[in-house]
């Protein structure tokens, strides 16, 4: 990762220009201070988003035990830096396609915690009207295209979204998240080829958390350097430390910039780890607890909190963020509890469009 391509470094170089142009150190100092403030504010926001995901999912565990949430639930805890970091590089006009492990992607995309919680409660006010549940969160207004529970199933969809953007030339990026397991499916390889061939504005983010359910990376891939293999299709492809949100953000900005500039698809391999079992049904017998602890020692939330504290964040600053996040989650749960059930008379809604296609 080149430091001169991070937004922070760019800010610094702008203030350096200002200094030479005006020769007024007081202004430069002010600008420097403003840039530092902005940087701290941004990092606080990153921390807030990661904490929101983590605490939201902690709450999901409780609610699942209480049978408020049912079905399959896959937790993202440990991987928060990936969704949060990548989303910094996307605009509201860009699109996101995710997997069944997508609470984090939805929250980072700005889908409200309340509408996600209501969806998991299976209520009418859920972001998918109670039809989808945990694995099928959708929010067209945020250009959040789900929520796909067929491994690899979202990748061709993302390819098509990018194709439409490319044909209309509207400079948008489609970002597709998928796992190391999905990297073994034909869908990924077919799309990788097609997207390079057609120079599609597609950002492929492989969340390599080292397991596809119970199968470890080295038992699912002959060549475990996934970025290397992606590069063979003729697109830029780089690994990034998925436990470091700042590194993810920097890499994603570089990638999104290249895609937006018309360079075709770009592949990021985020090296990360899920702390929890694959799903609520998984007894997690296939990995040793030491391995989990080793990864937890590099926790992305703790790491960013440490960076903030080193930068002068006061004692209790992080707790304050956590408190605000908890209040948001409390609200989400409370509104889900009170939300209406979808009447059974509406069972056949949304099978086909309400109006005939013209």
């Amino acid at each position, binding site marked *: 990762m080149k430091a001169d391509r991070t937004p922070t470094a760019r800010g610094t170089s702008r203030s350096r220009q200002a200094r030479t142009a005006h020769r007024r150190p007081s202004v430069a100092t002010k600008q420097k201070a403003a840039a530092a403030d902005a940087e701290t504010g941004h990092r606080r926001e990153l921390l807030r988003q990661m904490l929101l995901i983590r605490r939201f999912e902690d709450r999901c565990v409780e609610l699942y035990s209480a049978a408020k949430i*049912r*079905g399959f639930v896959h937790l993202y805890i440990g991987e928060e830096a990936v969704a949060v970091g990548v989303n910094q590089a996307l605009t509201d006009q860009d699109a996101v396609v995710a997997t069944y492990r997508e609470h984090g992607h939805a929250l980072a995309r700005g889908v409200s915690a309340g509408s996600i919680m209501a969806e998991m409660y299976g209520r009418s006010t859920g972001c998918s009207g109670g039809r989808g549940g945990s694995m099928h969160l959708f929010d067209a207004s945020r250009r959040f295209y789900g929520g796909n529970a067929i491994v690899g199933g979202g990748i061709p969809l993302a390819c098509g979204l990018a194709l439409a953007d490319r044909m209309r030339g509207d400079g948008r990026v489609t970002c597709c998240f998928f796992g190391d397991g999905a990297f073994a499916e*034909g869908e990924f390889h077919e799309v990788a080829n097609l997207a390079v061939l057609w120079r599609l504005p597609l950002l492929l983010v492989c969340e390599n958390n080292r397991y596809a359910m119970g199968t470890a990376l080295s038992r699912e891939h002959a060549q475990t350097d996934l970025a290397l293999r992606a590069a063979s299709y003729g697109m830029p492809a780089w690994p990034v430390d998925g436990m470091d949100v700042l590194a993810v953000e920097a890499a994603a900005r570089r990638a999104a910039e290249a895609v937006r500039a018309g360079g075709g698809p770009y592949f990021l391999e985020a090296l990360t780890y899920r702390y929890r079992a694959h799903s609520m049904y998984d007894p997690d017998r296939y990995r040793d607890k030491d391995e989990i602890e080793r990864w937890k020692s590099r926790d992305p939330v703790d790491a960013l909190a440490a960076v903030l504290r080193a930068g002068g964040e006061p004692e209790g600053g992080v707790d304050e963020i956590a408190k605000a996040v908890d209040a948001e989650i409390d609200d989400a749960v409370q509104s889900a509890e009170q939300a209406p059930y979808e009447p059974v008379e509406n069972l056949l809604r949304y099978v086909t469009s309400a109006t005939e296609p013209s």
Partner: protein
Amino acid sequence: MTAGSAATKPQQTTYREAMREAMREALRADERVFLMGEDVGRYGGCFGVSLGLLEEFGPERIRDTPLSESAFVGAGIGAAVAGMRPIVEIMTVNFSLLALDQILNNAATLLHMSGGQLAVPLVIRMTTGAGRQVAAQHSHSLEGWYAHIPGIRVLAPATVADARTVLAAALADPDPVLIFEHGSLYNLSGDPDPGADPVDLGRAAIRRPGTDATIVTFGGCLPKALEAAEELARLDVSAEVIDLRSLRPLDDAAIMSSVARTHHAVVVDEAWRTGSLAAEISARITEQVFYELDAPVERVCSAEVPIPYARQLEEAALPQTADIVAAVQKAVS
């Protein structure tokens, strides 16, 4: 085990364990048999069916595969053609769609296209069905689609004894056999000994005799149909419950002789109604025993909607015991 102890005390086991025991037996009996699929080894199968087999038979014969359904199902076909006896596990029918091309265009057609030269003695097992609030993409019941295809056999064991015996019968078949295990059945407990009624690939079983109406069903709907028959008995309606066991070929004789006795037929199928196996069975009844019928054939199927997540919507979408009771009452009224 002595014959005496087996005769006096029927052992209880689960559907899951019965299927596992059947695989263990097959792996022990025939060197050519091996199991492959996603997470069948170290994980023990996503529904725990193959738990312990890796430890007993080793990674050569209990093969974990990457997420590559088309590749490993196709590899099963190739290995079968080459003389092995693969058991391929696809986690669920939902993911079998990624391998549908291999199943339809290779497994089901090679024998015919090659003028009888290439047989495919392959067994594919997969979980099917809805009912656990896992939403549209994880709730399909597509065994009827597969039953549409000439060249393969489609089996749906619905009892512990069938789970215990179906695999040996499938492996003995020279052609591809698909076994559908409804997810709601794995914890079912029962006697694995088929007794006088071993699985004959093509034969349906009468699970409850009756005189007023015939309920034709299979797989995950069997427990519901039996429950409905119980309730109907309290309402003075004697319903016969037929468990198809084989979805292709269909045991026409068993269905027709029952309908000829009861004069009323209700078909229960978790798939969507349109173009379903229930439609096929209904058509056959009207073709073959139309003049025995005292009322139109009734069908109880899933509503024509992708299965929704919310509990009340999912329940409303799937065939329920009360729906079966109502359909039988309507037929006999």
